[in-house]
């Protein structure tokens, strides 16, 4: 019975949001297409000579059989080249990076995988951002820590195919078997006599070799890796540190005008009237007009566009704009109202959504029962680069210059909201100043496209920080009335969660990141589990926020496990390990299925490196927390010092991780360090509140981000396992908060039940 709990997907949001996938033309495929994948792949590997000699190897780099089949589906003979490895006659190599870069390091580590298998020195590689073209590149997105697991095999295939052909070319020249040759850092070496030929010299001959069947490719052994796992710095670093244009907001086009788009503070309010004539008289203002919008979640909200010569003139005009809003259909929701509602609703039994064993029996037979009530707030993404985008509508075509995480979702949406065809939309991918899930939703692209459609000039729209905070797609807040039962021996016998699940008013599904399941508990040994969920329709827009669902319930459940260990008077580490049970891989033993062996091993490693059990001074505490999300296993130990005024100094955070193997030591550790700091930042004092449907926070003064002096010492321990490598954008985030609140409890005996900790009188120093 217990295993039933783990038959679900543990990571409900791990995939690219279905609604976007659905919008990728031809994504849905038939069985035949899927079976045809390897053939398609071979056909689409194409070789061409380039000016000055050399070789272009163009591969299909679709990231999954589905995507593969999708972009070849039916029209194989017309589909063009896709991503490529280019080897020039001087031996230098150009590798295309296919996915959007928003700070997760993907523009560096995907090409590293190709370079490793190609067997070339990294210093001879230059990386270019590929075009956005689903037909040629398959799925191009940045979300759900998916770039690594989805591209691990296709990227290795790309490198290995080229290497195999270079070796074949050398073998032919020397009249020996390919097996007598080996590749070594840009050269093919004849094993019998030590002679070598450079890739540059071999490129043209390699282009004439038969393209190997992907099934015949031999990947390198991990132990022979020369590049993967090393500290490799970002490919755009030089441009970044010298201030060269890279980001969406840096885009400049000839004759470009600058725009703002003003929406109703209460979500989905419509424009009744506005002082457009006055605004049009303001200095620099070119035009001002109302856009009706379609009020569809994630698309075009109604509002007023102001187009001016410069950004400052547009911002200034925004201040002078007066709009009378029709709020009949607008949100009237309030955070304080939800807090009250949740308290009342969860006080009594609610609809049972999942039950394993019998919670009633657990309560009847319990030696001890613990009741607790946890609350966490809505959050904003607060990307440091506010949402912005440029668009140019000319000759019936719409060019979009977007710092987006989901470039391929755009054309379909624009074809729905504007009288243009999806084929007439061209997307140029630009670097995003932070993603965190905000740029998965392209509402801001809709806005600038709607403005550009009316204006005979390229337009860049920039949101002020205030607009960005008021019109986010928020991390959903939540409430959990928990009950845990212990038997005489201090074993955890039952767990119950009475909670609210907010549902999207438009479709009745749980809002993004709001699907709370028993599986999120990640304690397969508890014999009795009951989830009672009240479904509450919500208008306030919610989005995917770094480690959706896990980012909030990870804290709740990992705090509660500690609470139960404390109630049982048992050591937290030992108690937590007991919840994992025997080392085993549950469910269907895919990367998504919970593997208790990996959970146990990272937890033991974190405990060891985090000095678990070692005595601390008075006022100090140590806390532990585990979470499995986005295919990664993470346990964190936090050490804190708390003074009498509840000032918390986080002295050290030890992070133990199992993501199979680490691809880029620098990029990977940067993600983990960033997740720890983001975790602290979030729990310190961040809270989005709304009254009468309108967000109350506006900028970094009332929605503070962590500052440098508060950053703790972070120590990262990598546990290398044979599992395929998985992503690092998210999974280090969920365990952090509970490690810290458990440490605060250890230091002070005070349990934090409400996030952020400022609500309970604590602050970080």
């Amino acid at each position, binding site marked *: 019975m217990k295993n039933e709990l783990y038959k679900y997907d543990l990571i409900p949001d791990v995939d690219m949001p279905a609604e976007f996938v659905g919008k990728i033309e031809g994504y849905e495929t038939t069985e035949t297409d899927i079976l045809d994948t390897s053939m398609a792949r071979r056909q689409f590997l194409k070789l061409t000579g380039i000016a000055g000699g050399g070789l272009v190897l163009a591969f299909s780099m679709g990231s999954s059989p589905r995507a593969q089949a999708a972009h070849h589906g039916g029209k194989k003979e017309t589909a063009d080249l896709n991503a490529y490895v280019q080897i020039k006659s001087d031996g230098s190599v150009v590798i295309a990076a296919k996915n959007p870069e928003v700070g997760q*390091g993907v523009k560096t580590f995907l090409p590293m995988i190709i370079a490793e298998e190609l067997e070339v020195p990294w210093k001879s590689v230059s990386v270019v951002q590929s075009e956005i073209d689903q037909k040629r590149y398959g799925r191009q997105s940045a979300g759900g820590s998916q770039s690594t697991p989805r591209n691990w095999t296709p990227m290795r295939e790309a490198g290995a195919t080229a290497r195999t052909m270079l070796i074949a070319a050398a073998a032919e020249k020397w009249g020996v078997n390919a097996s007598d040759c080996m590749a070594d850092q840009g050269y093919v070496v004849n094993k019998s006599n030590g002679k070598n030929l450079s890739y540059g010299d071999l490129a043209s001959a390699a282009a004439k070799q038969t393209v190997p069947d992907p099934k015949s490719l031999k990947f390198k052994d991990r132990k022979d890796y020369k590049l993967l796992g090393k500290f490799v710095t970002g490919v755009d670093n030089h441009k970044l540190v010298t201030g060269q244009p890279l980001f969406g907001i840096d885009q400049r086009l000839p004759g470009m005008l600058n725009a703002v788009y003003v929406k109703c503070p209460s979500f989905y309010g419509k424009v009744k009237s506005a002082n457009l004539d006055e605004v049009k008289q303001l200095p620099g203002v070119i035009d001002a007009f109302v856009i009706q919008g379609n009020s569809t979640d994630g698309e075009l909200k109604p509002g007023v566009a102001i187009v001016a010569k410069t950004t400052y003139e547009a911002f200034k005009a925004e201040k002078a704009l007066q709009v009378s809003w029709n709020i009949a259909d607008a949100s009237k929701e309030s955070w304080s109202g939800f807090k009250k509602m949740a308290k009342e609703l969860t006080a009594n039994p609610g609809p049972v959504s999942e039950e394993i064993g019998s919670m009633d029996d657990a309560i009847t037979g319990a030696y001890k029962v613990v009741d607790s009530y946890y609350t966490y707030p809505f959050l904003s993404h607060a990307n440091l680069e506010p949402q912005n985008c440029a668009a140019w509508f000319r000759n019936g075509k719409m060019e979009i210059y977007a710092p987006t995480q989901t470039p391929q979702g755009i054309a379909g949406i624009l074809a729905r909201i504007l009288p243009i065809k999806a084929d007439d939309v061209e997307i140029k991918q630009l670097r995003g*100043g932070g993603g965190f899930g905000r740029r998965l939703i392209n509402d801001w692209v809709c806005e600038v496209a709607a403005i550009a459609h009316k204006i005979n000039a390229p337009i860049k729209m920039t949101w002020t920080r205030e607009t960005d905070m008021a019109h986010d797609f928020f991390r959903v807040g939540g409430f959990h009335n928990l009950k845990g039962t212990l038997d005489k021996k201090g074993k955890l016998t039952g767990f119950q969660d009475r909670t609210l699940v907010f549902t999207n008013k438009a479709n009745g599904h749980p809002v993004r990141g709001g699907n709370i399941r028993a599986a999120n508990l990640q304690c397969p040994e508890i014999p009795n589990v009951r989830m009672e969920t009240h479904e509450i329709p919500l208008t306030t827009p919610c989005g995917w926020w770094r480690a959706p669902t896990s980012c909030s319930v990870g804290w709740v459940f990992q705090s509660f496990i500690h609470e139960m260990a404390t109630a049982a008077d048992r050591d937290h580490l030992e108690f937590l390990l007991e919840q994992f049970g025997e080392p085993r891989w549950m469910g269907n033993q895919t990367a998504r299925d919970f593997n208790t062996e990996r959970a146990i091993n990272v937890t033991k490693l974190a405990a060891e490196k985090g000095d678990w059990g070692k005595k601390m001074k008075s006022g100090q505490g140590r806390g532990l927390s585990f979470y499995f999300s986005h295919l990664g296993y993470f346990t964190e130990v936090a050490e804190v010092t708390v003074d009498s005024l509840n000032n918390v100094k986080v002295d050290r955070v030890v992070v133990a991780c199992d993501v199979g193997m680490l691809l880029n030591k620098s990029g990977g550790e940067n993600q983990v360090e960033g997740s720890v700091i983001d975790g602290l930042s979030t729990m310190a004092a961040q809270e989005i509140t709304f009254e009468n449907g309108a967000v109350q926070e506006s*900028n970094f003064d009332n929605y503070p981000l962590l500052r*440098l*002096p508060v950053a703790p010492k972070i120590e990262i321990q990598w546990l290398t396992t044979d599992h395929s490598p998985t992503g690092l954008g998210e999974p280090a985030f969920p365990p952090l908060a509970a490690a810290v609140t458990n440490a605060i409890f250890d230091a002070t005996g005070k349990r934090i039940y409400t996030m952020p900790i400022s609500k309970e009188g604590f602050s970080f120093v």
Partner: protein
Amino acid sequence: MATIQIKVNGENRTISGIDPKTPLLWALRDHLGLVGTKFGCGKGLCGACTVHFNGTAIRSCSTAVSAVESRSITTIEGLAEDADHLHPLQEAWIEHDVPQCGYCQAGQMMNAAALLSTNPKPSDEDIDNAMIGNICRCGTYTRIRKAIHSAAGNGGNA
């Protein structure tokens, strides 16, 4: 509307037809095409827009262009001596791979450069005090600290 002269990265520039109250940030970005200086909050809260005004770090989003008329401004584009000689902070930023998204980093480096110009061997506490005004949403603070020490010749450690 006015015509304003400023010296940016050693070059005399004339901006005509500009509202003198325009923040220096937008004068640089929109009028002069120097987009390395970033917009984060517009209110002096995040430091993304940090530039040097006669050698001191200022928030360009909260400084009117008229206030720096005829004075000398250095932006991230002018931090390096020339293309072949990066500022030690730029070298350290690359070597320690500080950026994630990179959006805050121009402001971070400009602020750090101002710190090093008056305090070539800052302590951890000096760095805390100097850098507290610069937000990094991606959380690269530990690397920023390391890179400043490294540029100061402290070998990446305090």
